[in-house]
């Protein structure tokens, strides 16, 4: 077995371990039929040990991949996102050790699973570094950022548990709508994973030529059946479906197609789950969170920001600026990724001022934690894939 193969096997082990641990955590917090929670501690411990096995296996993936590529495996979308999944679990482990909260594992681990699955939709072969990335700052800057984001995401996890408990799912309200929207968006990510896996396993490809925004002829390959066509496209693949409509030149219709497929599959999946469970997804979790201490979740929400915010400042702003000064001759260039790092930072600064200065505890704080995670994910996904800039290494 080569180092690269060993590496991907370890990642696979981690994935399976997290999957098992999710269910064991779920069982631990669900309690027995009588509704007593005598076994919560014991089963929580078992689940935690499985999580630890998964985490060390994940770490093993990281180290072996580093040795296989010769550089810190943080250089493209697959590597960064996989590492984000790892630091998310790492953040959970730290907070579990502090607060012993199995319910957090039940929420965080599935999110980590989704993130790893999402990551593996991107090319995962070992890739060489372009000149701008050939420096130790790659490891220093990106690893600090990814650790900070993993910890900040825990704040959202605790916030989500808080909301799952306090939001009344039987009464129509804005809160109920948005909480369910969070659940729906997680299912859409699953839709993306399913759609991409399906079309890549079946080897779908459709080639087109089109006219780009500078008026030149270009070509593009769709990996999913083209729902939307590029500007003035011509199909080159026989038997490929005819796109429903054409987009202006500034829009990448191939990416729009991927988004539409994800929503399409995700929505079907969402309604399937709702039909089978006969309730909203957020309501499915109600029995799992009835034993949760709200005060503790609020504390974890805040504590994660307290740890994550300074780390984020250090990694995503200070180290980033130092490296940018060395590689690009300016410490700040208003590149979209930089701007979104600043937005994230400003957001958490606002979070802290609202919490400490305006007394936004509890539910408000929980919503803020979730919004923070949404911003982080936007910076990871949308800024890399949609808004192209210097950081688009995917």
């Amino acid at each position: 077995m080569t180092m690269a193969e060993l590496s991907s096997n370890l990642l696979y082990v981690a994935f399976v371990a997290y999957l098992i641990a999710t269910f064991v955590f779920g069982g631990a917090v669900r309690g027995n039929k009588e509704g007593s929670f005598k076994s919560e501690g014991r089963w929580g411990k078992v689940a935690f040990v499985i999580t630890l096995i998964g985490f060390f296996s994940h770490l093993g993936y990281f180290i072996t991949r580093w040795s296989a590529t010769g550089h810190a495996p943080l250089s493209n979308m697959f590597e960064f996102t996989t590492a984000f999944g790892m630091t998310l679990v790492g953040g959970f482990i730290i907070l579990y050790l502090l607060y012993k909260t199995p319910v957090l594992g039940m929420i965080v681990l599935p999110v980590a699973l989704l993130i790893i699955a999402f990551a593996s939709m991107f090319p995962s072969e070992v890739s060489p570094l372009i000149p701008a990335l050939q420096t130790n700052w790659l490891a220093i800057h990106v690893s600090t950022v990814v650790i900070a984001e993993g910890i900040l995401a825990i704040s959202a996890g605790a916030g989500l548990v808080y909301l799952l408990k306090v939001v009344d799912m039987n009464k129509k309200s804005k809160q109920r709508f948005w909480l369910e929207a969070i659940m729906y968006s997680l299912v859409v990510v699953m839709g993306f994973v399913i759609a991409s896996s399906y079309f890549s396993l079946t080897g779908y490809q459709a080639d087109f030529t089109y006219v780009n925004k500078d008026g030149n002829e270009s070509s593009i390959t769709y990996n999913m059946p083209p729902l939307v066509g590029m500007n003035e496209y011509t199909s080159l693949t026989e038997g490929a479906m005819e796109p429903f409509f054409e987009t202006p030149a500034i829009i990448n219709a191939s990416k729009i197609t991927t988004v539409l497929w994800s929503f399409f599959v995700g929505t079907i999946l969402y309604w399937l789950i709702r039909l089978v469970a006969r309730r909203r997804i957020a309501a499915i979790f109600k029995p799992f969170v009835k034993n949760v201490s709200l005060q503790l979740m609020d504390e974890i929400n805040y504590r994660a920001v307290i740890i994550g915010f300074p780390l984020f400042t250090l990694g995503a702003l200070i180290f980033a600026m130092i490296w940018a000064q060395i590689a690009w001759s300016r410490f700040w260039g208003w590149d979209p990724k930089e701007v979104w790092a600043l937005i994230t930072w400003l957001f958490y600064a606002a979070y802290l001022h609202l919490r400490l200065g305006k007394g936004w505890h509890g539910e408000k704080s929980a919503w803020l934690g979730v919004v923070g995670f949404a911003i982080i994910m936007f910076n990871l996904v949308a800024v890399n894939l949609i808004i192209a800039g210097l950081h688009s290494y995917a």
Partner: protein
Amino acid sequence: MEKMQCKCGHVNPPGTILCESCGRSLTEEEQNKKLADMRYEGTARRSQTYNKSIIDKIWNFFSSVKVGVSIIVLLLIAAAIGTILPQAQYVNVPVRNDATIKAYYADVYGEIGKIYHFLGFHDLYSSAWFIILVGMLAISLIVASLDRFVPLYRSLKNQRVLRHPSFMNKQRIYAEGPAPEDSMQKAEEKLKALKYKVTLDKNGLLAEKGRFSRWGPYVNHIGLIIFLFGVMLRMMPGFYVDETLWIREGETRAIPDAPGYFLENKNFTMETYTGEGEDAKFEEAIDRVGSVAKNYQTDIVLYQTPEESLPGATDEIEEVKEHAIRVNQPLKFDGYAVYQMDFRQNELRAMTFDLTNKETEESLGSLTIDLVNPEKSYDLGNDTRVDLLGYYPDFSGFENGEPQTETPIPNNPGFLVRMFTPETPDGEVSFIVIQNTIEPLGENQYKLTFQNAETRDVSGLTIRKDSTLPILGLGGLIFMIGVAQGMYFNHRRFWIQRQEDGGLVLAGHTNKNWYGLKKDLDQVSEFASLPPYIDQQEEIEKQEKLKKEQKLEGDELS
């Protein structure tokens, strides 16, 4: 407004809520509260005291957390909108000026682009309103910090060991009751062991730890202000140099804005990953994307004119050092840094032609024209020569019969020549561009046949000097220190007093992490047998919850 004298005799500034010295409530509102408002120690904040003059109003506006957070949120939203379409600096237009940029947004993005440009989002970060917002944030940072820091500092400096009972029993952590005689000494001993600073006064004790953490927010705000000051300084001339230098292989040029320094480009290299040997593991990735750059490098020699030499003299420059400028490895000297930013490969350097007879294709000799410094005439011997009548490095067409050149760079060189041979002693005129020859004065017997060309690479270097970097670094460092100071430490205090009846009264306060405070107190209580304490905040919450539940039950019954 008048100063407020407390019953204890201490004179407090107007607007004080809790006496700085003994802690008595000074306002009626405060007297009726179950718990004292300890956020800023009940001090007189200017913003909460004065609201008459225009200055008061401005001060109050900027000292408000709500306003500060609103500015942060506005900046955040503006920055987010600024990433929807590319910023003007990243837009490609053939000629860069306001009109072409405006047209670009309108052409490429339609109506949305027009609005975007109109509102200044295309150059958001230099737009007046964005800079004004950042300025307001800076003012808010300063005003809000001063408004809180000054009175807080005064109060913590003036605090007395003995506090009034009404202060003690309005603290969140409170205990009263009998205790053994040695309790005070034991409590003192234990608190000291827990690293508290203990002060005694008559029948009372004040234990304090981590007061410096109260300054954390102000320290990190100072860091941010220093950072913003550094950014502002960059706009002043002299603090900041940003120049571009295109330098060809073999050339030596003066470094712009770095008087007395010269750079020689010895060689430019661009490498890509081969996918073989060491790079074999990357083969799959390289196949997928086509080609991946491995290295951009300019080997240079840095020269300096000796100090005593005349300005502009280049003949006696001295070598300072050799360096390979690569991405991530700029050349550094004297506060300057030179970066590898761009390149052009294979710029024409010289062209070689044969003078040939069109019919027999016999060559009378060859000539090489240096495209940077062409000669006027090339003598091939035997009464044969070629005169260069005109040289057009970047030929772009004819205007009124005259050949034109667009730039002085030899992208598309054109030559107007007169060829003399023994057969044609009067000379034949010919105009030559790549792959084309024009004979303006009639059919010629001879022509210049292109043989080969010599090329060289051009490096695009950026020269930077940024004297504000140390200031920015200092700002960042102070910010991080302030954040750690405020977030990872907390200010804990205990007041203990022996009552006349022999019982003890105890109060505890922390600015955050009550759990930690209680853990400390548990240890002290056990060691010194203090009366059991209650968390009054939790008591109040419990009662409220109980009331709510009773109300709910009542609703259900009725």
